[in-house]
C-alpha cells in the first residue's frame, strides 16, 4: 500500500477527482492548505500599497492505494492537475504499513 499525497491548484480539484475515480480509487481526503514553493508567493495591491502574499492557497489530496494502482494514480494526477504554468504543485509517495476499515475490521488492501 502506498500513500499518494499531492499538492495541486484548487481549481484543478474536480479534474483530479474525476481522473482518480476512473482509475478506480475508492476514496480520497482533501484539505485546503497554504504554502509556497519555488514561486515564493506573489504581490497584490490595496489602495495604492503593494503587499506580498507569502503563502498561496493550494489543495492537498491524500489517497492510499494498492501497489498495483500506484503508477496509474501518479500519472492520472500528473495529467489532470497539469496546467503548464508555474505553481502546478507536487506529488509525494510513501509506504503505508497497515490500514484498517473501522466499521468492518477488515485490514490491508481489503480495507482500502
Amino acid at each position, binding site marked *: 500500500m502506498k500513500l499518494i499525497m499531492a499538492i495541486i491548484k484548487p481549481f484543478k480539484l474536480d479534474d483530479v477527482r474525476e481522473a482518480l475515480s476512473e482509475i478506480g480509487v475508492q476514496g480520497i481526503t482533501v484539505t485546503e492548505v497554504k504554502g509556497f514553493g519555488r514561486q515564493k508567493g506573489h504581490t*497584490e495591491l490595496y489602495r*495604492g*500599497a*503593494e503587499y506580498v502574499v507569502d503563502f498561496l492557497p493550494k489543495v492537498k489530496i491524500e489517497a492510499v492505494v494498492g501497489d498495483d494502482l500506484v503508477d496509474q494514480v501518479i500519472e492520472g494526477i500528473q495529467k489532470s492537475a497539469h496546467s503548464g504554468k508555474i505553481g502546478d504543485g507536487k506529488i509525494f509517495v510513501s509506504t503505508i504499513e497497515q490500514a484498517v476499515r473501522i466499521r468492518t475490521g477488515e485490514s490491508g488492501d481489503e480495507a482500502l
Partner: protein
Amino acid sequence: MEGQIFQLQYAMDTFYFLVMGALVMWMAAGFAMLEAGLVRSKNTTEILTKNVVLYAIACTAYMVVGYHIMYDGGYFLKDIALDGAASAEALTATVLAESAKAGFDGGAVYSNASDFFFQVVFVATAMSIVSGAVAERMKLWAFMLFAVVMTAFIYPMEGSWTWGAKSVFGMYSLADDFAFKDFAGSGIVHVAGAAAALAGVLLLGARKGKYGPNGEVNAIPGANLPLATLGTFILWMGWFGFNGGSVLKLGDIANSNLVAMVFLNTNAAAAGGVIAALIIARLLFGKADLTMALNGALAGLVAITASPDTPTPLVATLIGAAGGVLVVFSILTLDKMKIDDPVGAISVHGVVGMWGLMAVPLSAPGTSFGGQFVGLLTIFAWVFVASLITWYVIKMIMGIRVSEEEEFEGTDLSECGMEAYPEFTGSRGSGM
C-alpha cells in the same frame, strides 16, 4: 376647498419629509456595511456595535438637547406634538393659518415632528463618518462618550449657525453677511464629521504595522469587499433622501421639479465620481482598485451635496468627477503624512466636502468663493478644536486606545468578547 387643499399639501410635504428621512436613516446601514467590509475580520463585531450604538446615541442626545440648541425646538422636544399650536384642539386651525400665510407656492409647511426626524438622521450621519476613521484601534466606550458630546453639542452648535440661522457667538451671520450656502450639508454634516474624525485620529495614532520605520506604507486589506460595495450602494440610495429631502417641499410644481433635479444631479455626481476615481487609480497603480471606485462614488455624492439644486446634469457630473479625482490623491497624501484612516473617511467627507462647498459658486447665483470659504473655515475650526479638546479630555480620563495586545487580538474580543465569524474557530456549539 382651499383649506382642504392646504391640508393635502401639508400631508404630502410631511409624508415626503418622512420618507426622505427614512432613506437617510438607511445610510446608517450603509456606513455599517462599508466599514465592516474595509476593516479586518477581527474588528467586525466592534465596528458594527459602534455603528448601531452611535445611531441610538445621536437620536437620544439630539432629542434631549441637540435639537433645542440648533432650532430652539425645546429640551426633550416637549411641545413638538402640538406643531406650533397652543393646544391640541387648535392644531388644524393653526397649521391652516400658517399655510394660508405662506401661500400655496410659498415656504413649506410640514409637521415639526417630521422636521425633527429628518434632522436627527443627519446628526447620525455626521457621527457615522467618525467611526470608520478611528476603526480597529479605538476603545468602544471612549468612542461612545465622544458620540454623546458630538451629537448633543458640537454638531448642534455649528448647525445652529448655518441651518439654524443664528449668529456665530454673536460675531457674524453666515447667511446674512456671507450668503453662505450648504444645501444638504457638504460642510455642516460631512466636513464636520471628518474634522471630528481627524482630531480623533491625530490623538489616536495609526494602526500597528500600517507604517514602517522607513516611511513605507503597508497595506491592511479589508476583509469583505462585497460588504463594502453593498454599503456604498446603500449610501448612494440613502443620499437621494439626504439631498432630495433637503429641498424641504414637494407640494407644488416648482418644488417637485426641483426635487427631481436634485435626485438626478445627486446620481450624476456619484457616477462621475466612480468613473474619475477608477481611471485615476488605474493610471496611478496599474490596476482597477475597487475600494477607490467605492470611495469615488461617495466623493461624488459629498461634492454635490452643497448645491445639488443649481448645476446642470453635466456640471453635476463634473463636480462629482473632480471629487473622485481629489479623493484618490487625498487618500495617498494622508498615508504619506501617516494619518491612518482605514476607510478613507477624512478624504471622502473632509477634503471632498471642502471641494463641494467651494464649488457652490460655480452654479449657485448670489454665492461667492470668499463667503463659502468663511463658512468652511467656521465649521472646520469649531468642530476640529472642540473635538480635539473632547478627545483629549476622554484620553486623560479613560484612554482612547486599546492596548497593543488587544489590537493584535482584535477589538472584537477585547471590546465585545464576541467574534463576527465564530465558525472558523471550531469551538463547541458552532457546528464543527
